[in-house]
């Protein structure tokens, strides 16, 4: 499973960078979305993928059974998803407002502030 995930994550990163290098601001935001998803999958995979052993302690026991899935990366990924969701919601509103003001979705037309 891990090699497959590694390839998928690599492809996601590549696709994200490709999209971010396009000139359209919509594609830029799509790139950002793919990028944060790639990072979440990466955390999920590097922390070790364990199937069928939930981190639950049976009644009357003091310790969980050996080889349980690590719950921490899941909590981390969950937090990261929520953060990414909020930030991307902002980014979508931002590009909409920018489109209204600049009247173009072309990043090359947005260089008034550069020098």
């Amino acid at each position: 499973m891990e090699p497959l995930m590694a390839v998928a994550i690599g492809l996601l990163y590549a696709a994200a960078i490709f999209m971010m290098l396009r000139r359209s601001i919509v594609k830029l935001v799509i790139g950002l979305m793919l990028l944060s998803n790639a990072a979440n999958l990466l955390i999920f995979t590097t922390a070790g993928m364990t199937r069928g052993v939930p981190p639950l302690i049976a009644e009357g026991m003091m310790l969980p059974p050996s080889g349980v899935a690590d719950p921490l990366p899941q909590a981390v990924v969950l937090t990261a998803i929520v953060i990414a969701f909020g930030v991307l919601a902002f980014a979508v509103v931002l590009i909409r407002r920018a489109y209204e003001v600049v009247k173009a979705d072309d990043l090359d037309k947005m260089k008034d502030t550069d020098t």
Partner: protein
Amino acid sequence: MRPEVALPVLLPLLTGAVSLLFWRSRPMQRFLAVAGNVALLIVSLWLFVSTLSDGYVTMQMGSWPAPFGITLIADLLSAVMVLMTAIIGLAMGVYSLATTGRGHEKFGYYPLMHLLLAGVMGAFLTGDIFNLYVWFEVMLVASFALLILGGERAQMEGAIKYVTLNLLASVIFLTAVGLLYGMVGTLNMADIALRMDEAEHTGMVEVLAVMFMVAFGIKAAAFPLFFWLPASYHTPPVAVSALFAGLLTKVGVYAMFRVFTLMFDQTMGYLQEIMFWGAAFTMVTGVLGAAAQHEFRRILSFHIVSQIGYMILGLALYTPLAIAGGVFAIVHNMVVKTNLFLISGITHRLQGTYQLKKMGGLYRERPWLAVAFFLSAFSLAGIPPLSGFFAKFVIVRAGLEVEAYVVTGIALAVGLMTLYSMVKIWNEVFWKSLPEDNHVPETATPTGDDGRLLKPSLWMMYLPVMVLALFSLLIGVLAEPIMWVMMGIGDQLFEPSGYIEAVLGASASADDVLLQPTGAEDQPKADAGEAAR
């Protein structure tokens, strides 16, 4: 249980939430902006004093023992950063009362300011690497919203660059955290530091170190990664620019200091070369960029970049003295840079423009403003006896001690170039007479976003400017005790076993206790005194 570690984070969150409740009440929000930040300053002083006496103040959230729960920890570095943030926050609270237009206030300027402060404080005080990421995001989201309040074209364009590059940095940071967790299986920074020493040395450690360097380098606006900063910092209302200039990049620098002294100290030899040249190019490109500009806030934005170079140079030299100098540079820069932006706001109010060519004659008209600018600008350039001189002096001395002559020479030359830019502003804005084609309005110019005159509040703009200018002078005059604190920081960062022990308890690092944090400060005191002279 040490409440003072958690309070600097909780207070701004609380004031932010309360001022959200008073969404429609402008006076209440304005009152909270000042009162909340006064309370924040008091709490930060409390934290600073107890850190000064104990060395480390820790708190385990929810009483979960150290590597499992989230740890809040203040060492001297965190405490100093928190204190400076509170000072800047209070200055901004007062200044915002006079400059923020009603339009901004109506859309939650003050709650956002509190949340930004909460994010910054949290980043300084957390002892957990993922939690650091979360605080970074809190800070970023608040800054995004502040940046685009007003919704002018320049703001939107600046914001797109700012948002994209900062999100990219966040994702690189998050990726690095994920890989790090896969390698050592913990997120507590002290625990990571312990396990890194035991971890098998594959190339992964270097890869992670470079990923952290790139992520924090973008946030700190270091050399090849700084382009978002000059593109966006001159676009929002001046109070927001000043707040960003004083705080945001410094959080990136702080994170670099923390991560590279604590977790990646064994890769420092390898990374030093990169950091050296990164720092050198940051200083040079920043100052050259500023030389080409003729707009008040753009010049200042490029100087932020240039000054970041000094801080990173302090880390790259990697001796206790150099780290002390780097932190001194951060402290000095927070005060001076914020103040220069505040002054640019006053001149804009008085003359209605940021273009240097169109301004003039303020030396005659407002001599005290000229004095405040003179103090801040010459402090930035490093003229004794102002604060910038000592920051540079310590870094240069540390550079000479490790015989890094080229980079030290560059640092000195950049000081001269900084002086050139500051003299340019001085000549154009204060010294030369007002050009005749600039028709300055009879009354003071309004903030511009809703056309209301806010004239009587000019003294509220002067007050923080004067206090911060005085502060810069005081840092210079009281350099010896401040240097003593800085040397304490240098020793603490250079010897992370004290930090690890404070988080994990004595048992974890009993083998490699080399230095007690309190005993360590006596020895460098003499050295610091000498350096200050």
